């Protein structure tokens, strides 16, 4: 620590190397190509190299790394899901996150805050208990708590929500954390690059070459690249990629919006979510309140903001924290969420050989970044889905075997 600071102070000349090379000309072929240089794609590249020794890999990013939903989410990490499969998957992600700053040698500002999902009705309390029971069963720390415990963790919260929808209790999830989302992408990019993975920015996949139901390569604005394995890790752009290979999915793209206040001195230590009020809020390490809401109500493939969103959100946050009336919202933005009918991801192999999907992230993609990378790398390396993602296979929709996250998914984050 002291050494790192001194290095900057005494070095005179700034000697920090590039995080990753500025790749411009792709090779003729790679063992695997990953479409999408967000957290998921970069993590998959990293684990392909690290866990499976597959380093002849190119990551193709249409814009800049981490510029999609990796840089647009509200950076919450948690694992208090409803189905055992969901809980196990996200719990593995939380565990990877906890060691990630050290593993990638970058400070991800992964800070454990505790996460309260507030319940304003008896039926919400029942769902909280359901989640808590499943979480506890698989060893994840979640419990139903009363208003005293909520007030103790967040004394500023108006438990009556301005008299409009009193809070009855909450699901408290101790491991709930926040992280610096951009740094996750940068850290994986640097680590993957250092093992030989090539990252191409401003590189757009225009078509995917499939012959005899087997991937042959991809056509890009930098030319044709041959490969037998393509991983699509593009979240809100998934339908555009799956269309290239004529693959049908149940995904619908809906914008998810968020906004941020001016920085203020830290006062909100925990992460709060209210399904009934459709809000979630935490305070970043810069002092801003980072706030989000439910998905936009209809399909759009763009990232424009709406005024309705910010009107509804601020009204509800002010019900919870009436004293914020004159605190100012600085900026709002949106991302494109790839939503599935059962609110569980869509991962693994597909009917097209060599075409792998990492999609269906809805509003939960960021928190899955490490584990999705790890399991997808495994899936590519073995051409067989990792055990942890069996429930998330695309074929479940043909089989009427939907995953049961829908019950708890009104507003998750």
């Amino acid at each position, binding site marked *: *620590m002291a050494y*790192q*600071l001194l290095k*900057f*102070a005494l070095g005179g000349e*700034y000697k*920090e190397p*590039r*995080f990753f090379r500025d790749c411009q000309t792709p090779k003729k072929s790679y063992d695997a190509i990953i479409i999408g240089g967000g957290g998921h794609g970069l993590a998959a590249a990293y684990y392909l190299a690290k866990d499976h020794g597959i380093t002849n890999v190119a990551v193709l990013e249409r814009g*800049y790394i*981490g510029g999609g939903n990796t840089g647009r989410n509200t950076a919450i990490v948690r694992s208090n899901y409803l189905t055992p499969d969901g809980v196990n998957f996200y719990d593995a992600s939380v565990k990877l996150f*906890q060691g990630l*700053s*050290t593993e990638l040698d*970058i*400070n991800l*500002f*992964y800070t454990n805050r505790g996460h309260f999902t507030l319940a*304003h*009705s*008896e*039926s919400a309390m029942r769902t909280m*208990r*359901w989640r808590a029971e*499943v979480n506890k069963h698989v060893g994840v720390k979640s419990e139903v708590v009363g208003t005293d415990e909520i007030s103790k963790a967040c004394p500023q919260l108006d438990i009556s929500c301005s008299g409009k929808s009193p809070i009855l209790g909450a699901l408290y999830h101790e491991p709930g954390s926040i992280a610096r989302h*951009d*740094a996750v992408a940068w850290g994986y990019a640097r680590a993957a690059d250092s093992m030989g993975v090539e990252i191409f920015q401003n590189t757009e996949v225009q078509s995917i070459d499939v012959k005899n139901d087997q991937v042959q390569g991809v056509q890009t604005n930098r030319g044709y690249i041959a490969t037998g394995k393509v991983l699509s890790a593009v979240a809100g752009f998934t339908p555009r990629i799956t269309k290239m290979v004529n693959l049908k999915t149940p995904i619908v793209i809906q914008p998810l919006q968020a906004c941020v*206040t*001016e*920085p*203020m*001195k*830290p006062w909100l230590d925990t992460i709060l979510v209210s399904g009934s009020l459709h809000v979630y809020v935490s305070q*970043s390490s*810069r002092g801003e309140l980072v706030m989000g809401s439910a998905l936009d109500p209809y399909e759009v493939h763009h990232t*424009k*903001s709406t*005024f309705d969103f910010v*009107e509804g959100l*601020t*009204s509800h*946050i*002010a019900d919870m924290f*009436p*004293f*914020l*009336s*004159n*605190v*100012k*919202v600085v*900026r*709002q*933005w949106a991302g494109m969420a790839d939503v599935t*009918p*059962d609110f569980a991801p869509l991962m693994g192999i597909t009917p097209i050989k060599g075409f792998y999907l990492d999609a269906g992230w809805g509003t939960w993609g960021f928190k899955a970044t490490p584990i999705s990378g790890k399991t997808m790398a495994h899936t590519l390396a073995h051409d067989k889905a990792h055990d942890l993602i069996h429930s998330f296979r695309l074929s479940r929709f043909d089989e*009427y075997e939907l995953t*049961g996250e*829908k*019950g708890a998914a009104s507003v998750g984050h």
Partner: protein
Amino acid sequence: MSYQNKDNMRLAKKIGEWIDRDKVIKFSFEGEDYTGYEGDTITSALWANGVKVLGRSFKYHRARGVLSLANHDVNILVTDGVDTNIRADVVTLQSGMTLKVVNTEGGVVNDKKKIIDSISALLPVGFYYKAFHSPAVLFPFWEKFIRKAAGLGVVNFNYPRITQRKLNAYCDVLVIGAGPSGLSAALMAASNGLEVILVDENQQLGGSLVYDRAGGNAAKEMLDELSVKMAETPNIKVYTGSYAAGYYADHMVPIVTAKGITKVRAKTVIAATGAFEQPPVFRHNDLPGVMLGSAAQRLIYRYGVKPFNTCVVVTANAHGYRVALDLLNAGCTVVALVDMRAEADRDQYVGELARKGVKIYSSYCVYEALPSKSKLGVRGVTICPFDEKNGTSNTANSITLDCDGIAMSAGWAPAAALLYQSGMGVRFDNDIQQFVPNSLPNGIFAAGKVNGVYNIKQRGLDGMRAAAAALQYLGKSVETINVDHHQGASPSHFYPIVMHPKGKNFVDFDEDIAVKDFINAAQEGFDNIELMKRFTTVGMGPSQGKHSNMNAIRILAKIRNLPVEKIGTTTARPFFHPTPFGHLGGRSFHAHRLTTIHMWHKAANAVFVDVGAWSRPAYYQKSGLSRIETLQQEAIAVRQSVGIIDGGTLGKIEVCGPDAGLFLERFYTGKYIDQKVGTTRYALMLDESGVIVDDGIASRLAEQLFYLTVSTSNAAAVYREMQRWLQIWQLNVGLVNVTGAYGLINIAGPKSRDVLAKLVDIELSEANFPIGSALETQILGFSARIIRVGFVANLAYEIHMPSAQALNAWKALMQSGVKEGIRPFGTDTQRLLRLELGHHMPGYDTDGLTIPYEVGAEHALAMDKPFFVGQRSLQIIAKKPRNKILVSFVLPLDYSSEMPQDCNLVIDDGVIKGRVTSVSYSPAAKCVIGLAYVHPTQNQLGATFEIRTDNGSLAKATIVKTPFFNAE
């Protein structure tokens, strides 16, 4: 020189000034008392008092003074003890304000945190990504320090809830910006008969005409002329002191005023939003006393305040010359005008300045501002020859000049946020070194500086051109107006950046980001403008890049040796200025629905619960009884005698017409075509994937009239789906949602027949009106529908009547049941009662993926029908093995351990097999009863399974038949 020296900097009265010198305002700042005038901003009043150290920077706690005086920076944020992060540059001074600077430790002059500045070399850009995380166990320790340093103001937890009203406004043309182009546009549009709204964030109209005067009167005269016309034009609604917060779809622009938000829906929008003056970058360009030329002009002409005593003007455009003339006019000594350009001598004002004795240094730069000993202000400036092509300065020939301030004018960045949000495409105009609109969406127009027009006469004309274009867009016939392209020197310098080995040449004043930070970021690979923004945090502070983004783009272009247009711009998200919660949230309406009996329930001590938008009694509180005890008593009343519940919230839909039966057969899983008039049938609704959505009762009241009751929370959605399918099937059916029109009272229990019989003229005997009967009759003289139901008791009646009559009916039934001890019950009790009968409830005992086979609803599926929604999916699902099935269970009669709760899990050999969906002690069954999902292999009567309770103990449950008790 001492700072906070309290020199009187107030000038003699200026023509057109915004202050009222007859109205003195007293206030205090950092514990000292001052006076200002009405019309002053906090900053202008302080500067008039010679107070120049007005803030501390976010990261390094460097002393800061005026930069833009226009809300393009956040150098000066204060708190009045109630509110925080008050933007002193633009907030009007109020009598009695007690102000302190935010984010200091020990006051603004002696801020102890300024130590951070002296170790800033330890903290290069992005350092925090590379420190503190190893070893991991220490990060929580470091995090505490980091969190303490974060943030600006302290939030006041006692601040009152402010709920500002929202208004809507509509116009033909919304003109944003009331400078010369905006005023001209508004006048032109209005004189052609359009309804115009004109908005400007400043307190008065005029934009730069108010203050950019070059020491003369021409600008003021132009403003006066426009003002007269404005006064004569009635169809322009003016919002001053108000800003357009953002552009949203279909020309919706929220205007933020002091009193709330007005949502303007315009047919066309003209953005005459001007440009932000950009600081040239040199060492110590952030010291108090170094300010933008336009800020100095604002001080002089708006507030009658002298910016400096002795100053140097550094410039790279004509505007700097105008500023110098204004400074001279205000009595400042202008030691020198330093022009970074090689061709400075061509400027039209050179002669005038020379005549007034100002020495002009052409091809010179300010190499650094020299801090006073206290580091709280400027004592002088070092200038040296500058090669503008290469951006190199020749320090060997530097000159030091004494001064107490520097005015800077090097260029502009268009205030184009709203245009970007509307979907504008841009190009970079090399002649003016600025991004200008290349393509604008339909109905959106740009005028003035934001459109790349700088010449004062052309700006007015450009406003008229935009107005003419808007008129044409709206179908009016007017002549197209042409505006000359910019001629002469560029208003913006292509690279006003001066390197210095010791840095502290700031680009972003919000975030303390200097040139070196960009170079380092690029070196580490963050050489895309968006990545650079995220890594350095440039433009991410509260002023959102207004004074920093353009320089950042220029620096990155230089680093990458690319033209500026190849770098592109970062996204411009709403809001234009940070906007308060109270404004955005408005009055926070909370819609709710009450039945006509609501006040009666309230008077009877009902404890209410929200069901969708409805408020319903959960139970009726009796003093001295717990909730559970109350529920049980209410349930016992129903089992032993009679109870009454307000069901007015239930969805009620009339399906009428010749095809009504056919429609229901397609919509629900059962059969209705052959249903007899006067009877009811169960109605189970699935979605297309075979999942249970809702259930209810279909009563056939006439050959062509079915009356459907559906659950409270699903009523709207069920009705909506009915309407959609009706459109698709095109059947001869009418649908009427009578949910709100009808009240519903359910009386239940062995004595319910006796109680009801007293009020109706029909024979209610078992033989004449058995379960499953429905008819229309009269009660208390009005028409009602009576349905014999069995959801909560074997003998129970629903009485449906016009909602206006529901309270009368309720009271009459209560009266009629006095002898029987009739007791009202709520929804919590209702759930227990139906559980005792073994009925499952959609949404309670089912979830978003439950299929009929899992709840034993096979009897409701008429699979032999030609079609019903969900049928084809059920055919597929039927072939698959089940995962779970809902069973009825009891706990042993003597069970006394931890009581199972809803959603406790069914565990078998350490594996989750299901969960409890409903569980309660039943006074009728005299044991704990419930419904739970178990594995299908475990569903035989008499089989047992284990429920894990909250404390971890396992409760052994036995599967039994329902109902759980021997019915009456």
